[in-house]
C-alpha cells in the first residue's frame, strides 16, 4: 500500500507537467494563429506517433537502431576516455598535455567534426560513430580524472598506512573511492553522446535512425511526424538516464551518500 502510494507520489508530477504542456499547446492551436504545418495539433502528433510506431522503418525499429549506436559508441568512448582520464590523474605531464587537449575538445561541438568525418568515412554509420566518440571521449576523460583527484586524502592515507602502495593502492582504494564521481561523469557523457548522435544522424543520409527520420519528415513538411519523432528521442533519453540513475542510487545508498527524501 505504502509502496503504491510512493509510486503515486513520484509519478503525479511527471504526468502533471505533460498535461500542462499539452493543454497550453492545445489552447494555442485552438486560437488558429499559426497554420497546421507550423503548429500541428496534439491529436495529429498522437496519430502520427501511433501510425509510425511499428514496421521495418517504424519509430520503434529506428529507436532500437539509434540506441544500439549509442551504446556501441558509448562503450568505445568509456573504454578510451577512462584510460586517458586515469593517465591524466596519475601524471602531471599527461594532465598538462593531454588534459588541456581534452578540455579544448570538450569546448568543441562534436557535430563540427562531421564534414571531416564524412570525408574520411563517407556518408555512413562509421562517420556518425566517429562524431559521437570524439564528442564523448573528452567528457569521460575529464570526468574520470576529476573523480580520481577528488578522492578524500584521508582514505588514501588510511590505505597507505594499512599497507597498500603503488598499483594496489590505486586498485583497492583510489578507484573504488572515485566511483560515485565517475558515475556522475558518465551521466553527462551519455547525454553529450546522445545529442551528438541525433545531430549526426540528421545530416548523414546513409544511415537510418531517429535523427535521420526527423530530417526526412521535415523535408516532407510532415510536422506531426517531426514532433512525434522528437518525443521518441526524448523518451529514449529519459530511459537511458533512468538506467544511469538506478546505478548511481545503488552506489550512493550503499555508501550512505543518499539523502533520504
Amino acid at each position, binding site marked *: 500500500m505504502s509502496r503504491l502510494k510512493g509510486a503515486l507520489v513520484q509519478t503525479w508530477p511527471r504526468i502533471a507537467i505533460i498535461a500542462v504542456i499539452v493543454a497550453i499547446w492545445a489552447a494555442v492551436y485552438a486560437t488558429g494563429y499559426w497554420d497546421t504545418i507550423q503548429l500541428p495539433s496534439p491529436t495529429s502528433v498522437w496519430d502520427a506517433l501511433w501510425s509510425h510506431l511499428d514496421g521495418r522503418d517504424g519509430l520503434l525499429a529506428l529507436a532500437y537502431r539509434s540506441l544500439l549506436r549509442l551504446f556501441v559508441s558509448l562503450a568505445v568512448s568509456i573504454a578510451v576516455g577512462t584510460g586517458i582520464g586515469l593517465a591524466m590523474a596519475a601524471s602531471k605531464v599527461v594532465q598538462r598535455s593531454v588534459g588541456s587537449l581534452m578540455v579544448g575538445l570538450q569546448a568543441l561541438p562534436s557535430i563540427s567534426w562531421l564534414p571531416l568525418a564524412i570525408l574520411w568515412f563517407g556518408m555512413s554509420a562509421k562517420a556518425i560513430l566517429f562524431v559521437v566518440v570524439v564528442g564523448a571521449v573528452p567528457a569521460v576523460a575529464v570526468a574520470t580524472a576529476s573523480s580520481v583527484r577528488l578522492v578524500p586524502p584521508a582514505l588514501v592515507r*588510511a590505505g597507505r598506512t*594499512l599497507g597498500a602502495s603503488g598499483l594496489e593502492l590505486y586498485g583497492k582504494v583510489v578507484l573504488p573511492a572515485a566511483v560515485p564521481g565517475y558515475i556522475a561523469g558518465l551521466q553527462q557523457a551519455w547525454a553529450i553522446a546522445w545529442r551528438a548522435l541525433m545531430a549526426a544522424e540528421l545530416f548523414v543520409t546513409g544511415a537510418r535512425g531517429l535523427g535521420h527520420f526527423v530530417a526526412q519528415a521535415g523535408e516532407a513538411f510532415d510536422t506531426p511526424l517531426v514532433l512525434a519523432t522528437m518525443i521518441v528521442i526524448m523518451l529514449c533519453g529519459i530511459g537511458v538516464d533512468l538506467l544511469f540513475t538506478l546505478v548511481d542510487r545503488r552506489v550512493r545508498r550503499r555508501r550512505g*551518500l543518499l539523502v533520504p527524501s
Partner: protein
Amino acid sequence: MSSSPVLRVVTETAPVSPKLTLRGVSKGYVQSSGERVEAVANVSLDIAPGEFVCLIGPSGCGKSTLLNMIAGLDRPDAGEVLMDGAPVTGPGPDRAVLFQEPALFPWMSVVENVGFALGFVGTPKRERRERAMFWLEKVHLSAFANAQPHELSPGMRQRAALARSLVCQPEVLLADEPFGALDAQSREVLQHELQSVWLETRNTFVFVTHNVREAVFLADRVVLMSARPGSFLAEHRISSPRPRAFEDVLLSKVVVDVHDSLLKEVEKVVEAEGSARSDLA
C-alpha cells in the same frame, strides 16, 4: 638495606634499545602564501618497547607532523626517525595509524574494512574474515560486522578503525587525536577500550592529543611540546598502576601539574599571536 637502591640504579640504566628514536628531527612547510613555516625544530626522543607515550601541546605545535613522520607518511627535512635502529622510509604494517577521522572505506562492510590490511600480507581469504571478527569482538562491534560504515555511530566508527589498525598486529600504534571529534561518552568508552588493548598487547603506543586528562589517564609518559616550532619542553612520568580509573586521585594531581605547564605554553602562543598582530597594525 643499602643494597636495594644500588640494585635499582643498575636496573634503570640497563641498556634497553628503544623501539622508536627521533634524532634531531626538523620539518617545515611552505604555506599556500609562499611563506615557510617551521613545524618541528630539532626534536629528539627515545620511546621504549611497550611504552605508552602521549604527546601534548598547544594546537599547531607540530604533534601531527611528528606522528606522520614516524608513520612514514612524511619525511623529516633534517634528522632521522628510527624504528628498531633502522630508518623509517615509508608506511608499513608494523606501524598502525589511527586518525581523527575514522576514514573507513565506504564501499566495504565493517568486517571487510577491518580485514583490509590482511590482503597485503598474504592472509588467505577465509582466515581474513576470522581474524577481522576476532578484533571486532575486542572492540565490541561483532554485531555490526556486516553493516556499512555509515550505519554506525561516530564512536562505533572509530572503534572499527581501531580494530582495522590492529588487525595485522603492529608493534607500534600511532594515534593522532583519534577521539577528538567524539562526544564525551564515546570518548570515555574508547579510552577504556584503548587501555585494555594496550594492556593486552603491550605494544608501543604513541598518542597525540590536546586533552590533558586523556593523556594522563592513558600514558606512561606525557611529553609536553612547545609552541611552534615544536620542540620538547618537559615530560611527566605517570607510574599509577593499571587498569586506571578516571577517579584516581593520584592522576588528578598529575593532571593539574601538566595542565599548568600546558597553559603557560598556550599563553605564549596567544602572546606571540598578539604581538604578531600588533606588528601588522
